[in-house]
């Protein structure tokens, strides 16, 4: 061992490794959302289609199933890269704590396996299984998608609130208890928050595709259902998500006060703490922000006299980068509120008039809601991941001590940037083609069996 050389290399690798991980995770998480929620929308459309004998709905479901296949394939390959990167980039984390928090990944291995199998069965079996058996084959896909989200988020929750082990005098892990590690204080709130986010991202994104079509004058059944089904799911989950946001903020306040202080860019520990929107944090103070008096104390403690811990109580070298965390958090909450408003508008019109709001402004809002929901989710992950810094395992292991010192590792970042640029372009091209030409088949299907009247009859029979 040549410790000096190793330290120098690790320092060189740290920033590119973090960016590589952020890019890989940030890309993969979008596709994971579709893996979790899209099967639900698809099988719902399929079920309604069979029930009403509505060919437009069945056809829509088939298009969605194919899009799901493409998105699942993209998610699968990006997920594979992630499982390599966990070890290649962060051996200090995996080598030391793999026995404590690696276990949910084993379970995720099973969940993903079941999901992959049933995605294959669902797409391959489109005209080969009876409608009933076919729709039932979606159930394992839906359950394993949600279970997989739970397992992966549980591992992340452990990094925020490490439990289920002891450290001996040398800092060696002893007495690892993987079940306890999986059910730490952050797990429940984080999982529910992510699952709802997945439904919102998928719902608003799919709806936005059909909103664009309607803005171009296509008002057929296909577009109406294509907008209505996903938007309804998303709109129902949005207010629930805001409630869950309150829950998760309280969990953060209890367990990671420095993260909460960074989210709010709060320096001074105080009662009657204000809620600050926007602004820039420097010289231990937030400038140019809009302040809502008492609101932060009310939100975190549900009591105006509640004391909120500020950054002053955290040593400077243990503080996260405040501006990134604060602004990302504001972006997430801001977009979430806007989506709530959109949902309220939609819900109200539907309740009073039983129709989709006809105003082009409504359709324009839906058209951007997909991208907005994705941005909100990415901002949320930025908040929690950057907010945990400088720790990779909160309070125990610093990120800089976990990165691999392997020489040349930083070059991987540039390769990953190039690969994801190509992959993103390809995914967009394929999905656009899929939206225009219904006879293209998904990777898991065999032939381009066109969903025309004849096959439709077969499927209904």
């Amino acid at each position: 061992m040549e410790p000096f050389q190793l330290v120098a290399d690790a320092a060189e690798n740290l920033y590119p490794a973090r960016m590589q991980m952020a890019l890989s995770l940030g890309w993969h998480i979008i596709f994971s959302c579709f893996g979790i929620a899209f099967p639900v929308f698809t099988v719902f459309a399929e079920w309604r289609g069979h029930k009403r004998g509505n060919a437009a709905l069945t056809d829509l479901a088939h298009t969605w199933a194919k899009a799901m296949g493409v998105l699942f394939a993209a998610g699968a390959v990006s997920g594979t890269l992630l499982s390599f990167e966990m070890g290649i980039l962060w051996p200090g984390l995996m080598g030391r704590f793999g026995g404590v928090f690696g276990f949910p990944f084993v379970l995720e291995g099973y969940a993903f396996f079941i999901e992959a199998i049933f995605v294959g069965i669902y797409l391959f079996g489109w005209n080969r299984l009876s409608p009933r058996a076919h729709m039932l084959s979606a159930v394992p896909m839906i359950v394993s998608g949600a279970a997989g989200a739970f397992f992966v988020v549980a591992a992340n929750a452990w990094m925020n609130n490490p439990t289920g082990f002891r450290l001996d005098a040398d800092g060696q892990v002893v007495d690892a208890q993987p079940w306890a590690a999986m059910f730490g204080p952050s797990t429940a709130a984080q999982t529910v928050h992510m699952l709802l986010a997945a439904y919102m991202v998928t719902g608003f994104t799919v709806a936005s595709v059909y909103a664009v079509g309607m803005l171009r004058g296509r008002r057929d059944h296909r577009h109406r259902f294509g907008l209505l089904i996903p938007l309804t799911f998303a709109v129902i989950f949005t207010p629930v998500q805001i409630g869950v946001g309150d829950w998760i903020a309280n969990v953060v306040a209890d367990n990671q006060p420095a993260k909460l202080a960074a989210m709010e860019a709060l320096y001074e520990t105080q009662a009657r703490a204000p809620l600050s929107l926007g602004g820039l944090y420097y010289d231990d103070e937030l400038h140019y922000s809009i302040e809502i008096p008492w609101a932060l104390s009310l939100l975190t403690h549900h009591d105006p006299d509640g004391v909120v811990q500020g950054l002053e109580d955290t040593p400077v070298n243990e503080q996260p980068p405040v501006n990134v965390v604060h602004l990302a958090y504001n972006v997430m909450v801001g977009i979430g509120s806007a989506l709530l408003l959109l949902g309220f508008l939609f819900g109200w019109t539907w309740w009073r008039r039983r129709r989709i709001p006809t105003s082009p402004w409504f359709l324009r809002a839906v058209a951007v809601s997909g991208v907005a929901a994705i941005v909100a989710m990415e901002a949320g992950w930025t908040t929690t991941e950057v907010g945990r810094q400088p720790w990779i395992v909160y309070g125990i292991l610093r990120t800089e001590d976990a990165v691999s010192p392997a020489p040349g590792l930083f070059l991987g970042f540039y390769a990953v940037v190039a690969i994801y640029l190509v992959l993103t372009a390809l995914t967009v091209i394929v999905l656009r083609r899929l939206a225009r030409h219904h006879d293209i088949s998904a990777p898991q299907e065999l032939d381009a069996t066109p969903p025309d009247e004849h096959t439709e009859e077969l499927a209904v029979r």
Partner: protein
Amino acid sequence: MTLAELVLGVMFVGLIAYGLFGGADFGAGIWDLLAGGARRGARQRDLIEHSIGPVWEANHVWLIFVLVILWTGFSEAFAAVVTTLYIPLTLAAFGMIARGAAFAFRKSITTLSMQRFLGAAFALSSLVTPFFLGAVVGGVASGRIPPGIASGNVVTSWVNPTSVLGGVMAVLVCAYLAAVFLCGDARREGEEDLADQFRIRALGTAGVTGVAGVAGLFVLRGDAPLLWEGLTGRAVPVVGLSVVAGVAAVVFLALGRYVPARLASALAVSAILVGWAVAQYPYILVPDMTIEEAATGRATLQAMLVAFSVGAVFLVPALVFLYVLFQRSGPASAHEDVPREHTGAATP
């Protein structure tokens, strides 16, 4: 058998499954590469696409399985391997991305140049990915991975005679398995002439693999003496089984009996992998770290065994269902009840 050995054994079952199913998948891509010009190779490529379409994702989850078991159950050994061998592993991961994406997307793209680009990406990455994975195995098996994070040489750990042997053998075995599997698939689709073509390829690849294997033993004697000692000592029965099964597979192939040929081939390939494990037992990192030393805590290993048992209850029936559904209702039979003019789109 200790708890740690049991968990590592399950990991090895996953590795064998990846070798067989993922390997055949890679091999199919290699034959896609060698199928010739666009027109001449069209039927072969169609068959290849039919054979791996619905199952390719499931085939590759085995690798994830192997990785997560290693990092949870044998964290320190895992960290040592992936950091020292990060270059071939990263390249293999890129290969998997290129391959998966190209395969998934190429049928949705109609522009000829784009299709050619994606087809080439699929076929080329099918060739290089198993090579890098084989090189990784060679690095581990020849004892070039010391314990500790990135403690080994990040270049010579995989650019060495045993790694080259591992890479070449991996490519050959993938190609061989795919050819054998494709024989049966071609017959099921009623394309006997294609089955014959793949039979000739399978027999040819079997010959080359056999020669490379024998030559490889001499490479190991010089480059990886501990592995050589194990293979020619403790592991002799397993190596022998591999040879016998390999010969039997060739005989079945020559007779045109594709189902027993598949089984015998799978057995031969599994035995090669088991032979490696037996030869380097009890070390996980030759010659410094044993399986017991690398194993994480008892509670973790027990939790994993619980997960394996419960998981298998869900996984095995699901996998069987997928393969049965897929093998029984190939496109030919599925089309019987669908009017012909609506199915011919992809096979002009």
